[in-house]
């Protein structure tokens, strides 16, 4: 058994407001092994991006980590001073965000941005850094890197820009990449290219990825394991095949059913009634129970915790024997 690369334990992210503290992410725990791709899927507001932001230590105040810990290779990183966190960010944890135009500086040539990143995080000199930048651009599939290295971000198309962002994330050979909706802003044909590239790069570099997306299809293509988030908690986590093929949690079942499929004719899509609760109006018990078709006595009263079930872990009273009696 290899050592866990990233371990998130009982993470809680809260926002103090005048009307009380809002809990956006609550009691989230998961591990990522070296070289593993963990998909985190959920709808907007589920807390998936916030979890990623917490790992790289970029939660915007007044938001804060209220409880729990984040361990990288067994070492706590959630309470590091910002100066030390900055050295981890970029070097040991790379980042890819949704919109490549906002994650690149429009005023600098991409070569400058790559070389600066390499110089900041490694001991290379400028010539070696430039050589490495060229190699990275070639690796992410930018044609004629010699010519393109001195281009500005606006001279690239959307897909090419996202490739440059991937090259930036890989510049210091990080152990983990946090990719937050890396393909959402791209056209389908380009999306397929970027997914294939991300998969290849992680395999070649043995880089682990936390892939945050709302697109189950992207997860099914890319991830080894998947965590399904709802209203700030993980409701189901397990091997991607198990979760996609035989979802257990009623929310995951609803989510899978609501995806229109290109190869099946369905007169009606399964729909989950209602919408995700607001942070200010979290229902008691299981946050999903007001929308759940299978809710019963204990659901409204107590919050279910993640319990192993088959190859997955599910947070649902349906999977806890004897739940009715104590509810």
């Amino acid at each position: 058994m290899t050592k866990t690369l990233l371990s998130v334990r009982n993470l809680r992210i809260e926002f103090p407001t005048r009307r009380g503290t809002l809990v956006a992410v609550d009691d989230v725990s998961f591990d990522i092994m070296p070289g593993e791709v963990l998909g985190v899927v959920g709808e907007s507001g589920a807390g998936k991006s916030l979890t990623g932001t917490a790992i790289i230590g970029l939660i915007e105040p007044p938001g804060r980590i209220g409880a729990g810990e984040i361990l990288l290779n067994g070492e706590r990183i959630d309470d590091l001073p910002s100066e030390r966190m900055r050295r981890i960010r970029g070097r040991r944890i790379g980042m890819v965000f949704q919109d490549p135009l906002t994650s690149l500086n429009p005023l600098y040539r991409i070569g400058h941005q790559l070389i600066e990143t390499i110089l900041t995080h490694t001991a290379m000199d400028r010539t070696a850094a430039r050589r490495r930048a060229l190699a990275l651009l070639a690796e992410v599939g930018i044609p004629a890197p010699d010519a393109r290295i001195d281009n500005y971000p606006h001279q690239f198309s959307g897909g090419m820009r996202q490739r440059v962002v991937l090259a930036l994330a890989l510049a210091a050979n990080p152990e983990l990449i946090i990719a937050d909706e890396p393909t959402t802003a791209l056209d389908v044909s380009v999306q397929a290219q970027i997914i294939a590239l991300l998969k290849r790069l992680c395999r070649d570099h043995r880089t682990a990825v936390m892939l945050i997306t709302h697109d189950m299809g992207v997860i099914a293509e890319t991830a080894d394991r998947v965590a399904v988030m709802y209203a700030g908690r993980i409701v189901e986590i397990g091997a991607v095949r198990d979760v996609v093929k035989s979802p257990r949690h009623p929310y995951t079942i609803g989510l899978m059913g609501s995806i229109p499929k290109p190869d099946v004719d369905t007169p009606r899509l399964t729909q989950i009634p209602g919408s995700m609760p607001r942070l200010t109006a979290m229902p008691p018990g299981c946050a999903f129970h007001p929308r759940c078709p299978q809710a019963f006595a204990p659901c409204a009263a107590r919050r279910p915790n993640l319990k192993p079930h088959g190859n997955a872990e599910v947070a649902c009273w349906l999977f806890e024997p004897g739940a009715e009696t104590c509810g």
Partner: protein
Amino acid sequence: MTADPLVDVKNVGRTFDVSKPWLNRMIEHLPRQFLAAVTGVSFSIAPRETFALVGESGSGKSTVAKLAVGLIPPSAGDVVIAGVSMNDPARRAERRRLRRRIQMVFQDPYASLNPRCRAADIIAEPIRAFGLFQRRAEVAGQAHELLRLVGLDPADGRKYPHEFSGGQRQRVAIARALASQPDFIVCDEPTSALDVSVQAQILNLMRDLQDRLGLTYLFISHNLAVVRHMARQIGVMYLGRLVEMSPTAELFAAPRHPYTRMLLDAVPDLDMTGNPRKPVEGEVPNPIDPPKGCAFHPRCPYANARCRVERPALLAAGPALVACHAVEEARL
């Protein structure tokens, strides 16, 4: 298709002038530049049917949507709705009456609703504009009825757009489109900004409304799976032209044009068959300077010398219309 279509788009085209300002052109000796956003697109939609246009960004599908509702005039061709040309100056009076019967639902419900208006007022505006009801109480009653129709509580009419979630906002936008009692609704990426479970709610709602009210849709999306769910007839666009037009079942069972095949292949595989997908190289070219011949040839694995020089025409292939030399020559 039945003999009497509600919407008939005839060889419609639209170019935009994207030239630099006059002074720059004079100083830098630049010619005028034109962008052909849509060229030679024809299709018709029978009453109570849904026709879908799919394509990637820059394919011209949204321009077709705007042409179909008359938001922009075509540079060539014509759009005829219920027998009335949308551009014949002689038929202005008829067209004004026709306007009521055409509505549009936009992609972003955050941008398409006036943030300073209450939902009920947003919905009531078309009712007043077309004079469907005169008395204040009747207008309000109608707005409440519409809110109920799209699955909202009439009490929600008091709320402002920011108080709604994305899905609820799109419901308000649909209620507004329905307020003028239209026959034909153009939906331009109506669910692209929404989460999947909300998307399912909106798609189901749109189908229910179509059945109940006998609506005709022009449905525009980049998502093939969504389109399959909604439409009976699909047109695939690439760089401003239709490359394939086919009944839905046929398109998914036997896609013909290499671009359609590529699009279908690019849809992430939820079945986890493990079949490696072969992503097509390259991206959509710049529409200001489209490739010669078939616009898809630089990315097409089946391209030959003819594809590079001669633009393929949209020809019948089985039940479909396909613009591809390889299909025509049975190389594919």
